[in-house]
């Protein structure tokens, strides 16, 4: 079983994010306000890999994937850094070439949106959603397109009849499957997923995760997904990146991050997970998430950190290689895991 846990051996990278800074810049009545939602993030995602981003609400994780997708609107702006994709040898710089980016959307790069209920138009049949999203990109005749969509739905475990139904006639699990079908019908190389299972009932969550994993394996695509639910990361991510207050604080292969977390925040996230068969008291993290318009000095986690020392309040720790991953902490590895 362990072999499936290791990151894939192919090291060719699919996505390269370098020194990315994306801020919400507002200017109200002459008062400038800047929210540093993505602050100096660098990461690489390999071909055929599932990369999970974890972090609490308002940590900037959704802003990060929106910036990667090139789907940002003011006041969120990219201040510095670059996002580059490599689709089969063809390099694409998201913020340098809007024309190429437009062509790559859905064909090479697609998006599974959060809240499947809101993605599908409630007054139109499901088939129109497929037409709107994918028809133009596939360059097929209408009948060939329809045949392709039906075949794809069957592959995903949905009856092609759902194309004729309205969204409200389908269950939450079926709608989530449909949004996955929408995102994968063009067989993209790279898929971005925002909280793909959060709105789902517990009983269908595993099926949807299995579907995502299965599709990824069959198409050989890379996926980056965001959720605050660590058990979802445990289930499908090959590597995890932990985001705290707009910064990547730890990154590594899933198993290593769960077994030997190096950053105190990661250690807390993992040790606070309740398990069936164990009801001993678990501690909650003190304090509240930092305000990104006015983040704490030094390491942004230091006001809530049990290991904080003077250095942490003054100096920002760099993200450095450690063991099998990277970590940004002055006291990396000193954390005790329960």
């Amino acid at each position, binding site marked *: 079983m362990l072999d499936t*846990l290791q990151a894939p051996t192919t090291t060719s990278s699919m996505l390269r994010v370098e020194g990315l800074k994306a801020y919400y810049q507002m200017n109200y009545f002459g008062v400038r306000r800047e929210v540093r939602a993505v602050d100096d993030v660098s990461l690489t995602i390999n071909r055929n890999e599932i990369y999970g981003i974890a972090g*609490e609400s308002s940590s900037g994780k959704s802003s990060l994937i929106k910036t990667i997708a090139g789907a940002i609107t003011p006041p969120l702006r990219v201040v510095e850094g670059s996002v580059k994709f490599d689709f089969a040898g063809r390099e694409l710089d998201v913020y340098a070439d809007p024309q190429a980016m437009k062509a790559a959307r859905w064909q090479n790069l697609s998006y599974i949106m959060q809240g499947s209920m809101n993605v599908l138009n409630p007054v139109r049949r499901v088939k129109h959603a497929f037409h709107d999203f994918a028809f133009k990109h596939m360059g097929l005749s209408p009948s060939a397109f329809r045949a392709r969509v039906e075949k794809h739905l069957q592959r995903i475990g949905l009856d092609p009849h759902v194309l004729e139904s309205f969204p409200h006639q389908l269950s939450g699990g079926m709608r989530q499957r449909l949004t996955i079908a929408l995102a994968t019908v063009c067989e993209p190389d790279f898929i971005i997923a925002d909280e793909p299972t959060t709105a789902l009932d517990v009983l269908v969550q595993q099926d949807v995760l*299995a579907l995502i*994993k*299965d599709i990824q394996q069959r198409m050989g695509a890379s996926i980056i997904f965001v959720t605050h639910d*660590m058990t979802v990361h445990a289930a499908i991510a090959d590597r995890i990146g932990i985001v705290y207050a707009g910064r990547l604080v730890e990154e590594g292969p899933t*198993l290593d991050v769960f077994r030997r977390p190096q950053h105190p925040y990661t250690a807390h996230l993992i040790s*606070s997970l309740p*398990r069936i068969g164990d009801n001993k008291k678990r501690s909650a993290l003190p304090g*509240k998430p930092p305000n990104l318009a006015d983040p704490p000095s030094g390491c942004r986690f230091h006001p809530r950190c049990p290991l904080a020392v003077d250095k942490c309040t003054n100096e920002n720790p760099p993200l450095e290689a450690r063991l099998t991953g990277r970590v940004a902490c002055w006291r990396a590895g000193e954390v005790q895991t329960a």
Partner: protein
Amino acid sequence: MSALLELRNVNKDYRIGGFFDSSTLHAVKNVSFTLDDSKPEIFTIVGESGSGKTTTARMILGNETPTSGSLRFMGQSITAIRSRAGKLKFMSKAQPIFQNPFEAFNPLSTIDYFLFSTARRFLGLRDKAAIDAATDKALHHVGLSLAEVRGRYSHELSGGQLQRIAVARALIPEPKLIVADEPVSMVDASLRMSIVNLFRDLRDRLGVSIIYITHDLSTAYYISDRVIIMYKGDVVESGVAQEVLGNPQHAYSKALSQAVLPPDPEAARKIIMAKIA
């Protein structure tokens, strides 16, 4: 030993459909349980959406009348309360906490408005200092204080803080029973523990009984004393939480407990790979 809350053969049916073509939906079927007055506990109702758990909660709070069966709170029938004074008295002893803290507070009013009006209405306080004192005391129970909350709007506070304030609001009339409907499902996983720990603390320190409604078996296991599992309106399993959830007997409870992903990569991955094969 007297009963704090007693449900006996409670049923709730809804008619669906039009005038000519209607059918009956049995939302809650024959639910019976008793909470003891002298022994505060966390009583959990588990089930997926559509299992009737929220309808049960609404009946306990008197928001919904049962089709048949009796609900008694501190010896008095909930459905028989008619007068405004009687309703106020009942509501001050049984308080709700709702699912989404962002929607529970009006975004255009300051948070303290809700706390003060609760104190005025249920404690009958008129004096500003007394209202402040009662609010501050309730906020202290959840680890906050009036000074931190006064004059703030809901968008200025985090989800975890808002949910704590929602709990504090429920505590102002010094209730005997709190009905919490999915109180952590909208809260981040990392803040979930602080809310759940708070419930434990309220039970132990203030002697408040809590009806905790959830679909999340792992937090249910973590805090509950007793649990019932509902499926399509029926109670399919009930008993001591650790026994029921640790060793489920009914097919539905087994499915539910298997649906919980273990917080361990190796075990979780095995489940997902088995589903693909």
